[in-house]
């Protein structure tokens, strides 16, 4: 088991980083979800009128991706903490690609949806494809890091 309080333990540092990042991200995107529900409740034209179809989709996707990726970060921390036989050489890459994907994907949806051109999101949406590639890489490295069973 990694020691989370020990700053010299790299695995412990990663656990702390992903837990902290995951919970804060979850908080942020849950607040966004509340905002979107309020926009429905208050019938905000900016969000609900037909021209905002792309905006609604993008902001909903920002909320969904942000929330799920926050949970993935927390799960990743749990995985690092709980699993004994991890191929450590894959973990740093898995960690930073996961963090980068967690930033880029929801941010791309959010910024892309804030300003729309008809049915096209703003240029912020261009963050989404690199975010998606980084997420795939992160999942690949996490999968590779799973070592043989400790039993």
């Amino acid at each position: 088991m990694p020691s989370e309080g020990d700053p010299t333990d790299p695995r412990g540092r990663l656990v702390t980083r992903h837990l902290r990042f995951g919970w804060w991200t979850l908080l942020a995107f849950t607040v966004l979800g509340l905002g979107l529900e309020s926009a429905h409740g208050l019938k905000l034209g900016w969000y609900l009128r037909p021209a905002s179809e792309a905006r609604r989709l993008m902001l909903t996707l920002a909320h969904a991706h942000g929330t799920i990726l926050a949970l993935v970060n927390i799960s990743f921390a749990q995985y690092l903490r709980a699993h004994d036989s991890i191929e450590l050489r894959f973990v740093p890459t898995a960690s930073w690609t996961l963090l980068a994907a967690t930033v880029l994907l929801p941010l791309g949806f959010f910024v892309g949806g804030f300003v729309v051109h008809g049915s096209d999101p703003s240029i912020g949406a261009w963050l989404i494809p690199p975010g998606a590639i980084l997420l795939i890489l992160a999942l690949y490295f996490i999968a590779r890091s799973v070592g043989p069973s400790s039993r």
Partner: protein
Amino acid sequence: MLAGSLIAFAVLIAIAGAFLLEKGRRRSGTSALLVAIGVLAAGAAVGLTARMHAAAQAEQTAARSVPATRSTEGYVSSEECRACHPEEYASWHRTYHRTMTQVATPDTVVADFSDRWQSYRGQRYRVFRRGDELWVDVPDPVATFVNEWKGFAAISAPRVERRVSMVTGSHHMQVFWVPAAEGNFNLTFPFVWLIADHRWAPRKDVFLDYPERLHGLQDWNRNCIFCHATLGQPRPQPGNATGMIFDTQVADLGIACEACHGPGGDHVAANTNPLRRYLLHLTERPETTIVNPARLDHRAATEVCAQCHGITDWDDLPQRTYTGARYRPGARLSDTQPLIHNGTDRLRSKVAQDPSYYRDRFWPDGAIRVSGREFNGLFDSRCYQRGELSCLSCHSMHDSEPTYQLARDKHGDEACLQCHGSMRRDVVAHTHHGADSKGSRCVNCHMPRTVYGLLRAMRNHHIDSPDVSLDTARGGRPNACNLCHLDRTLAWTQEHLVEWYGRRPIELTPDQERLPVGLALALAGDAPQRAIAAWHLGWLPAQKATGASWAGPVLAELMADPYAAVRYIAEHSLGPELRRSQGQPLDEGVKRPLLQARDTTRFNLAE
């Protein structure tokens, strides 16, 4: 599909039956009951399936009677536009351009179809519903249509039941179309639904049409299609001996995106490339694969509307019949649909073929007098010829309320003041009316309601200034001043125009010197003049100017007009308040000679 379902069902029943028979060997009493239930269930299932099959067949038949919506000639339909332009789609969807033709369903029809009979000229017509289907019981429309062409009423036409296929209408009335023959040939149902009055009325009576004329059933496929659908293609079929077998198709029912923007196929194909789209978004470069009327010069922009809102000749008729109108937004309308306009050979040729052609469309001075042809009026206006006035100077498809489609910031005088801004400083000096008076509103003097359509007087888009010389011609266009000051004489109006605007006086007849213009128009005028007068007698600013009690007795005379449309307008203008105020009956010595002098020319205004 259906056969497959039936076989599967039969197999299931057979398996269940075999199972029960096997069990029945052991417990014969219970099994007999179960077999009976199984047989009953099978019967019910077959019956239900047959009924569903019949319903599906009825749907298919109904669908065949509506012109097919197909993507041809580069047109892709409004649904394709919606995907990328949801706001523009939504703002267009609110307009009555969209509702100019719709498939008739309980959602699109506001008329009362709850089993009602209507009678008209010895014929009976029934409207009724079968579930969600709207039906009519009528004398055979084909026989009626043919008989009318031959010039006699279809008294002997056999009765038929037809499912209503399409509906045309806006906020005034709804017109219904019924399939008449093979293919999707559709004719009018002879009654329309008046929305505000919540009642049926004979279709003939809502037009300014002389009483003796027959119904005038109209076919959708060769006439209405071109302006009430997008890229309408009539497509008469070969071997069409009756001239009534069509495989008509359209890009869209109703007047949709591509009617004004042109075919969208290239635009859709080009913009599947996201890099191209973002380049356009970020640089705001004009899109070259589709027409935006707002970026056209004022003539080309106006001609987009004029393809339907003008009286034009169809030089492209042979192609138009099979592949739709050749005009495309941005092109020169005169290349394919030249305007039929006062003083042109085309108009002379039309009049040579049909002497009533001119009077059923134009005032004697050449100004348009029928609704829906605003371009003919605009074309004659200096604002268009010498200025840059276009339809889009005042109207907007996407930023307006549906009734008049006036652009949001072009209500009141604002439309005119965008060019005539100096008037803003001292409007009273120009109008000689109070600043808040209706007489100080630009359109009341320069675009008076001298166009007839849809049971009302409408604004003429022939923009000019009040001029009594127009009235002096027989059946002449009423001047703007006397459409408010109905109780004043032409001499009174001329006096003011000379004094205020330095107009050159003209010689007036003794009657023009002494008779109120409103009275002369209402009693002695021709049918269009009487309709226009009847509407203005109920117009509140006119009643304010004349005193309400003046209009009542004149309207009472118009309630006995030979034209149903004039009677309808008079009844509406009279209203409960005027009925109460009554007023002095008209002097017989004045009334009788006017009624005797009434212009009895037969009109059938080409709305």
